[in-house]
């Protein structure tokens, strides 16, 4: 069965990669996409509006208990961890930072994969800390599809490398191949 939610995690150096993935997704794809990107606290950045210009999806910053729907790209708000509930609604959480981060990619990967099992696809991009590695491993162990950005391509390879170091069966792909894979899988 096809994965039902795509979750993209990234930090420093991931933003442009996200834009080019979104820009090149086939217009017929509407699988919900969740983006967890480390951002500045209290930042009123125009992140969502920039994303919106690159995609046929509707981009939406997540509100607590919002229901996941097709055709939407959801972004994790700054300063909250992002979790998934059984009824496919989001839950936000302000508990302690994990890996110096809130949102923490680890938390989201883990929470989504224990509910969705094989019905999710996690993609870990460039970044300069270890967040996401443990979560992506858990996702793989729950039979989810897991992809890391090509460590040679990533602007900051620490993040995908950390994931690779603790689990060596993730697919390691460059941006072009990530796009091709998604277009093949979800069309």
């Amino acid at each position: 069965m096809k994965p039902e939610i795509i979750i993209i995690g990234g930090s420093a150096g991931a933003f442009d990669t996200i834009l080019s993935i979104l820009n090149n997704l086939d217009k017929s794809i509407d699988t919900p996409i969740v983006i967890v990107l480390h951002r500045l606290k209290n930042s009123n950045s125009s992140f969502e509006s920039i994303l919106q210009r690159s995609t046929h999806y509707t981009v939406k910053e997540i509100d607590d208990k919002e229901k996941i729907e097709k055709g939407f790209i959801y972004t994790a708000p700054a300063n909250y961890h992002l979790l998934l509930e059984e009824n496919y609604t989001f839950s936000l959480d302000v508990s302690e930072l994990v890996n110096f981060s809130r949102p923490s990619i680890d938390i989201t990967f883990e929470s989504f994969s224990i509910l969705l099992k094989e019905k999710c696809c996690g993609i870990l991009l460039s970044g300069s800390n270890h967040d996401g590695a443990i979560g992506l491993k858990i996702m793989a162990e729950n039979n989810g599809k897991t992809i890391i950005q090509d460590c040679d391509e990533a602007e900051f390879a620490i993040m995908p490398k950390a994931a690779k170091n603790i689990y060596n069966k993730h697919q390691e792909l460059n941006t072009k191949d990530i796009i091709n894979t998604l277009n093949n899988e979800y069309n």
Partner: protein
Amino acid sequence: MIKLNELDELLFTIKKQFDYDFSDYSKASMLRRVNRFMDINNMKTSVDLKFELINNPTIFQNFINEIVVNVSEFFRDPSFFKSLHEKVFPYLDSYPKINIWTAGCSFGEETYSLNILLKENNLFPKTRIYATDISRNAIEQSKKGIYDNTNFKDYTKNYYECGGKESLKNYFVSDEKHSMINSEFKQNILFSNHNLVADSVFKECQLILCRNVLIYFNSKLQNKAFELFYDSLPVHGFLAIGKKESLRFSSVYENFKEIDREEKIYQKIR
């Protein structure tokens, strides 16, 4: 580590044994908190946990204190406090006496932040604040009003961002490690235990702050809390919730008007 399906059973046991009902809390974060608690206390299975909870009276209170999330800060979301100051304070000023309720006050950071703003805007002398939380530990810590110095850089930044003009540290007495809020800021606050799930209205308040508490409830329980707030507010009273929380799906939504959509400040209109 416990799994989602064991969580329901655990919460059911807790409800029966201790009369604390967490069954309508958000499952995802509850699961993390319970697992964190078990980890810290070296418990392996839900059987271990239940055994300890039932046979060791102090551990249950510990459990309550630990599974709730007390993380807070002074002037969290500066733009919220700015809006409160600009859009709500002028209205509050028209009352001869003001009652404010901060529900889910954690260790007091939010309540004292509010009190500092009230002081700076001369509303302090006529205001009484009721600050409540489900956690006894949170209430005790709030009463002490002592905070780690390490976080004050962030707090000061927040304070300036919301328009503060003084030096935040002037409102505290500090030593090398800690800062304690000046005692005058404690005088008009009544800190007490109150459970939004089980307890009822206790006072009519012109302003209610309940921020970053409802995210831990499912929609049904959120709705129940909204009804409680509705009943505690006079017409024209204000309700402020967390920046990412929403009143939209509640049964009382129609009875409120948006004062600030971004900052989630509402006014009861009927």
